[in-house]
């Protein structure tokens, strides 16, 4: 891989300030002081929970740890340790009973299908706790994942607000270092945790350092396929990334509504998200 990581450089302290204010403002507008974060033991949810803690105070953040049985027990321990370090409440909910019950009735051999079901089960629990707590679910999808569609739609992608979605994975790492996220979490290989041994970089097919440079070139740089290849990336890799972006467009937009009337939801009945809050 060629190319320098300079274009991905961020001023982490400034980014922290903006994101902390964003979380505080969005919740404040709704008269809501509390936030919920699904803690996986990974980097993104650790950064998100840390930002929420700085924005709202530890007493107003709840971390939900939702393992499938005894799989990923290291991650569960890491997540609990992080919650204790941040001084936030956390709760552990094993999703194995409902998942096993469902797949006993509707068996599958697809691990993606099982993984997606688990991601949506976690979403369902987060939203239930959102009502119990009177708090907002914070999203943890980063820009790299959003662009290549590496996430479960209506699963881990579901949230009330997402403070992380304009930071590439490598930038989340830089922010994590600034936020002093424990080294054990920062040094782990990123994983969606859908099955043991899964890693993002094996699924996506290239390391985040290169993926992020390609994405940055295409998105911020508005470069063409040819220009990105000329910048030093293999044509096959660039094409793979372009395919992933194109195929996952539906995950980044609300579903289209068939227009019939003069003025329709989603077409020309247009109000800001933050209206009148």
């Amino acid at each position, binding site marked *: 891989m060629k190319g320098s990581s300079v274009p991905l450089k961020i001023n982490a302290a400034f980014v922290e*300030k903006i994101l902390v204010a964003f979380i505080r*403002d969005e919740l404040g507008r709704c008269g809501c002081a509390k936030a919920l974060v699904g803690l996986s033991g990974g980097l993104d949810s650790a950064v998100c929970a840390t930002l929420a803690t700085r924005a709202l105070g530890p007493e107003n953040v709840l971390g939900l740890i939702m393992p499938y049985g005894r799989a990923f027990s290291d991650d569960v321990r890491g997540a609990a340790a992080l919650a204790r370090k941040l001084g936030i409440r956390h709760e552990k909910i094993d999703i194995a009973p409902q998942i096993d019950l469902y797949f006993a009735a509707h068996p599958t051999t697809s691990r993606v299908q099982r993984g997606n079901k688990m991601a949506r089960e976690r979403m369902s629990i987060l939203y239930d706790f959102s009502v119990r707590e009177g708090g907002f679910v914070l999203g943890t999808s980063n820009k790299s994942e959003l662009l290549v569609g590496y996430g479960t739609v209506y699963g881990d992608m579901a949230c009330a607000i997402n403070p992380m979605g304009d930071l590439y994975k490598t930038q989340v790492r830089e922010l994590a270092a600034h936020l002093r996220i424990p080294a054990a979490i920062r040094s782990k290989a990123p994983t969606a945790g859908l099955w043991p041994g899964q890693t993002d970089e094996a699924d996506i097919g290239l390391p985040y350092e290169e993926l992020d440079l390609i994405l940055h070139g295409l998105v911020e740089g508005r470069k063409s396929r040819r220009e990105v290849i000329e910048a030093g990336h293999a044509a096959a890799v660039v094409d793979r990334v372009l395919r992933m972006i194109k195929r996952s467009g539906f995950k980044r937009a609300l579903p289209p509504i068939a227009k019939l009337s003069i003025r329709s939801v989603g077409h020309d009945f247009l109000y*800001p*998200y933050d209206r009148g809050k």
Partner: protein
Amino acid sequence: MKIALAQIAPKLGDVEANIDTHLEIIDKARKQKVDLVCFPELGLTGYTLKDLVEEVALDPASDPRFRRIVAATKGLSAVVGFVLESPEDRGLYYNAAAFIADSKVVHVHRKVFLPTGGIFEEAKFFAPGRDFRTFKAPFGRAGLLICRDFLQYGSSYVHYASGADLIICISAGPGRGVAGGQAFETSRMWELMGEAVSYFSTAFVLYTNRVGSEDGVTFAGGSFVFAPGGRLVARGSSIDPELVVCRIDLADVREGRRKWLFKRDEKPEAIWRSLERIVRAPED
């Protein structure tokens, strides 16, 4: 004279709450013996309005809420950003700025350049203004610009050519780019252009930008005042609300024009002839 730039975070769609904020700041400014207080673009309504535009539009001549602000400016001046729907122009909504002095609306500017593209969609919801005019303020001649107006090359030239001592820009400029220092990268662009225009025009350049966030977009603050010839008089923080108060001396305009002879040597008629030819036959 004393100037205040009100770097506030308006509440989206809540005119009453924003009027209260404006009144509080005018009161605060008066206590500090401020002569001119500038509020940001769409300060009475918030920026990301979309279809809310028609709900928050008002006629400054008759709206009782707006009259409260006008009445509050006794003995000082204020620039206020709002959505205009005038009786002569019903059903058309303008992104507007009013210059109010001593309880009178002296001038209303309608934003000419409505950014539409990328994160901006103003031309979808606003009608464009078609004119730049200077006017006589209590302390000198002034011209108003709203946000993108300032970034279009010719706008501040027109104010300069018609004798402005002050070019006053009010803005709802979102921050973009976080690789730099303790401010958004776009803030540098604004400041650089403000500084340049203060040289070109040998006038004061006042820029008031809002803060806060709407629908995930953070507004960059970084309000500033440049004296003629690129002297930074005051600068607001990025992101945080602030009332930036500073003193300026309008005699600096005279001094600037004695030192830099651009204004003396200006030939608006030559510019006009060239522009006329370009407009009539752009291919020439």
